[in-house]
């Protein structure tokens, strides 16, 4: 573990997602996607699924409404059928590659309580080597050059307090407090969710991305217990050209996520997750 970064012995992370968005390869249709899988990924990712295309996402700054969209829009070129988002899964379904005309995403997920988070450096290594394979393939097939325009890293945590209902989020998050001005509502709490955004700035204090933190009450599929899903996503511009620029942003985003996670979660939870470093006083 790097110095200066908070470290947890038993973190609640269940999924880590590294992704890049790039200028679309318009000719990467479902047929070429099949050839791509056959040539590059079939051995390591033998299971295939097809899903709907993800819409482009950008972090912009100085925009009055920020990334809060006031209307939903979608653009489908009607002359062409929708482009698929292919899922290539490992045999045990612990890892996934998602590829569409303008996205390349690598997911790792925890399959059971015994499986251990392989750590960021290992997840990043898989992402960068498979992305390099994809880049070389697109170049050799004359689909175009890989021009990244946004990068994204997400950590998904499942947090249970062992209660039969969705617990008070203030036990988990320092930034959520049930502090009422009047008695009204004090005894009527059911559940809560929130979405907070923070600006990620570079060394020159210029904004280069955003950290989104979302807490959502969910129910675990396997045992129907109520838990909170806490998702931290850092998204922004690549920090330089090519895959190197993507990895540089992902490193910065990961640092913001790890530090941000420690900053907004309570010391009560840090004890449960076995925080190793002393933290800030």
């Amino acid at each position, binding site marked *: 573990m790097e110095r200066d970064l908070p470290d947890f012995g038993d973190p609640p992370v*269940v*999924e880590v*997602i590294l*992704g890049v968005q790039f*200028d*679309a390869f*318009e000719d990467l249709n479902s047929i070429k996607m099949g050839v791509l899988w056959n040539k590059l990924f079939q051995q390591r990712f033998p299971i295939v699924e097809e*899903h*709907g*295309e*993800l819409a*482009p996402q*950008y*972090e*912009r*700054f*100085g*925009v*009055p*409404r*920020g990334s809060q*969209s*006031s*209307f*939903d*829009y*979608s*653009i*489908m*070129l*009607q002359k062409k059928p*929708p482009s698929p988002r292919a*899922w290539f899964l490992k045999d045990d379904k612990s890892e*996934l590659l*998602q590829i569409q005309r303008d996205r390349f*995403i690598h*997911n790792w*997920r*925890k399959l059971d309580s015994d499986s251990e988070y392989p750590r960021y450096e290992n997840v990043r290594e898989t992402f960068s080597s498979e992305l390099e394979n994809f880049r070389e393939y697109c170049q050799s097939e004359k689909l175009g050059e890989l021009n990244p*325009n*946004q990068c994204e890293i*997400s950590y*998904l945590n*499942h947090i249970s307090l062992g209660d039969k209902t969705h617990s008070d989020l203030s036990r988990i998050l320092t930034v959520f407090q049930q502090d009422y001005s009047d008695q009204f509502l004090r005894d009527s709490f059911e559940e809560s969710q929130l979405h907070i955004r923070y600006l990620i700035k570079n060394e020159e204090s*210029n*904004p*280069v991305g955003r950290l989104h933190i979302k807490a*959502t*009450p*969910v*129910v*675990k*599929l396997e045992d129907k217990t109520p*838990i909170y*899903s806490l*998702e931290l996503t850092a998204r*922004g*511009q690549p920090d330089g050209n090519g895959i190197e620029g993507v990895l540089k942003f992902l490193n910065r985003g990961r640092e913001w996520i790890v530090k941000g996670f420690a900053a907004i979660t309570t010391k009560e939870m840090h004890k449960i997750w076995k925080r190793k470093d002393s933290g800030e006083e």
Partner: protein
Amino acid sequence: MSFTLCESEVAADFEPLPEKTMIPSQSVDWLQPLNEKLNSLLSLKENWDSYGGLPPRKQAVHGVTAIFDGFFDEETPFPEIVPTSKGNIQLEWHLPHCELEVEVISTVQMHLYFEDEENGELIDTVLEADQTVLSNCIDRLKNST
């Protein structure tokens, strides 16, 4: 894009895609002309200008909708929306004392030209993710109408 599914997350991950270019118009009537214009631009074919012009690229269309989404309200003067031969889309405002032209390449790539004849101010710049300059120029347009 997560694949760890919880009950309340399943639906969001599998929402069907709309089948055509659309901006819901019931709540934002003033955006309907944009919807019509973009649909007409998307129907342009290669050589639409008989000089080998490229049809508007999807990224440019997304960029235009992102500008409307982020900066526009009912009081914003509606621009001319024209294709360029390179496959980009240009937004143009020609008001009595000032002009603004934004060539949209994508949501985070634009070329902005602004001129205020009253005070001689000229801005000619490339914009990426930080779009404060565009925000200021659009405010100036609103104040000058």
